[in-house]
């Protein structure tokens, strides 16, 4: 047992840190540190910079052009990016669909799709949830019917994150109604420029447009876009979910945001208020405990002996912590969290703020973060899974 990273790992960290410091545009990191609005261009610019270095698919094995890092190296890379103020990599291409294409796609599909994902050129979206299929995802109804060399897709997806920018979407579609719901699902890649695809943004409670409805009206999809075998899509989707188990806990961002919370609390004069300060202290312990859990999982992936048997715990705890720091930041601002001035959340705004400028996005972030215990398998569904493991 040893808490320290090896000298090689520390050297690796230093290399990543130096590279990020030299290559992350400061206008982007400034926005991240201050929770200001990130445009499509900001996200895409950083993705392309990573892509040129070969690090956008930082979890990829060497045979597909990735760096072939182990779990600890991946974690160190993510930590250095987060602490330096890099935007989160939009995961749908490099983190979510790419591993499925690598594991279950054929050689032509790999050659066709992976380069655009690795370079950051092509924006991918995820088509899983439907209006009637949230936690019960396997009940999904979007149909794909085989007609000759094509599938014809009809139905609706929803909660498609950043789908307004999407060029391609990977979808779970129903290709059979026989047997159990899980057995009739296929994994299909769809060009969002295809006739019959309509994207309708959903305005969220904080005023942001982050998620979308995606409608499919007789959309013709070449059969060559089917991943693996027909009716095996559920298996592939589960593979995707088992990938990057520590990613959703996002402990690195939590550390960065905890630092921001302390800055905001100091600026707003509540850091010396013992009642408030103790709430930060509790969160500090929560973050360290989460980080220790993450490290246990990572070390287990490296050594092959898993010391934490339930990954769902990371999702539950990580999401609760994300909500808590956003909540405490809002409370630190107090009444000055209340004015809603959307322009004040854009970089470079020169207008008159009400209260300190750093207060402007705090309530919106708090409102937005309520999503974290809902998405990626709601925390209640996660608790069902955890309890099944414990109760046997």
């Amino acid at each position, binding site marked *: 047992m040893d*808490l320290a990273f090896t000298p090689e790992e520390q050297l690796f960290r230093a290399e990543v840190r130096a590279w990020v410091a030299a290559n992350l545009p400061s206008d982007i990191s400034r926005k991240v540190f201050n929770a200001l609005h990130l445009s499509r261009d900001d996200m895409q610019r950083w993705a392309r910079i990573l892509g040129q270095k070969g690090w956008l698919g930082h979890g990829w094995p060497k045979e597909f052009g990735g760096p072939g890092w182990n779990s600890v190296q991946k974690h160190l890379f993510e930590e250095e990016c987060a602490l330096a103020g890099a935007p989160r990599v939009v995961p749908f291409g490099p983190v979510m669909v790419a591993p499925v294409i690598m594991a279950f796609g054929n050689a032509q599909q790999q050659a066709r799709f992976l380069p655009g994902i690795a370079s950051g050129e092509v924006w991918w979206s995820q088509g899983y949830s439907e209006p009637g299929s949230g936690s019960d995802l396997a009940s999904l109804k979007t149909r794909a019917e085989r007609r000759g060399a094509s599938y014809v897709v009809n139905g609706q997806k929803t909660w498609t994150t950043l789908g307004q920018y999407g060029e391609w979407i990977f979808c779970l579609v129903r290709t059979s109604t026989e047997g159990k719901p899980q057995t009739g699902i296929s994994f299909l890649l769809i060009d969002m420029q295809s006739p019959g695809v309509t994207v309708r943004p959903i305005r969220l409670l904080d005023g942001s447009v982050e998620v979308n409805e995606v409608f499919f009206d007789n959309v013709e999809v070449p059969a060559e876009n089917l991943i693996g075998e027909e009716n095996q899509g559920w298996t592939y989707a589960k593979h995707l979910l088992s990938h990057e188990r520590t990613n959703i806990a996002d402990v690195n961002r939590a550390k960065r945001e905890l630092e921001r919370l302390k800055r905001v609390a100091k600026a707003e004069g509540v850091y010396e208020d013992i009642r408030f300060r103790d709430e930060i202290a509790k969160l*500090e*312990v929560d973050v360290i405990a989460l980080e220790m859990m993450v490290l246990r999982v990572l070390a287990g992936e490296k050594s092959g002996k898993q010391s934490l048997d339930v990954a769902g715990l990371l999702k539950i705890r990580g999401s609760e912590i994300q909500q808590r720091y956003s909540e405490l930041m809002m409370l630190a601002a107090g009444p000055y969290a209340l004015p809603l001035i959307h322009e004040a959340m854009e970089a470079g705004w020169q207008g008159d703020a009400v209260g300190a400028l750093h207060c402007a996005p705090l309530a919106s972030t708090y409102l937005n973060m309520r999503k974290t215990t809902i998405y990626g398998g709601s925390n209640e569904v996660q*608790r069902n899974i955890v*309890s099944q493991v*414990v109760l046997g």
Partner: protein
Amino acid sequence: MDFDFSDDQDQLRDAVRRWVEKAYTFDRRRSIVADGGFSADGYRELAELGLCGLYIPEDLGGMGMGPVEGMVAMEELGRGIVLEPLPQALIAGAVLSAYAPPSLASHWAPQVARGEKVISLAYQERAGRYRLDARATTASRKGDTWALSGHKSLVVAGDNADAWIVSATIDGKLALFLVERGSQGATTRGYGTIDGACAAELMLHQAPAQRISDDGLAVLGHAVDIGIAATCAEAVGVMDQTLAITVDYMNTRKQFGVVISSFQALKHRVADMKMQLELARSMSYYASLKLHAPAPERRAAMARAKYQLGQSMRFIGQQAVQLHGGIGMTDEYIVSHYFKRLTQMEMVFGDTLHHLGEVSARMQDSAGVFA
């Protein structure tokens, strides 16, 4: 970074677990509680396993092992809610061999390792609560030795100890001393504690003492931190077993014609208990792996760990009783004894609010395992 146990550590765990399962049965424990909460035989058996000398170097008759071995042993003792206080042996062994004058160390440390002598830390005072710098006990020079006067409180197994490590001030500065049982002017008043173990008040009136260290606050801080790490590890064992007992019960007990583990409200409680257990285990690892860090870093780490463990212990203990229903309230059924042990352990070496205060006071701009 590595959280695997070595083969030797696995063997140590197996040996202690086998002893707990075979030799330290619930019936035996019950009879020890009835007899006052401490068994000299039980303590000697810990020594025979090599545990009392874990932190004592080999040239002083110990095993010369580290915090991870201590953690492994404590987890397994926790599983069986063993009453005999191994943390006191770990503290005494480490303090004597690292800080005491050689003559004192070479006299006492081998006897601690062999389980022939029990030495207990006496640092708490009525007015001091959990603070280390309680200073109502004073030391004055008496020829070659010292004389201590004061009243130490809540000394673990204090009535069964052969000597005590006592904090007392010399001209206002804290120092550590060794006081032997039977010394004139040293008397104890023992009592049971809520977990079935025992403690004592230690009254000193010009009691003869030998000085361990002038740097009392630093050494006491180290001693208490060894105790915190050991208690955290023990708590993990207790909680692990508490959850296992609760899960067994839920999978057996039927109401409304089905086992109660089929109810979602109760399933989610189990998930929350598992969460607290794994957070606690993570922070227990953290505590033990930070036990050799420089003092400020070590102290901060122990406060964080004990804060998490305190919360976990209270939650898991309370929920275990709740999920058992009425049977959880009885003395006869095992789970209430685990609950009481958890309640006790939350309040030794600083309770949850105390350590929250420590974390809060030590907060820096950055945070994290490596900050």
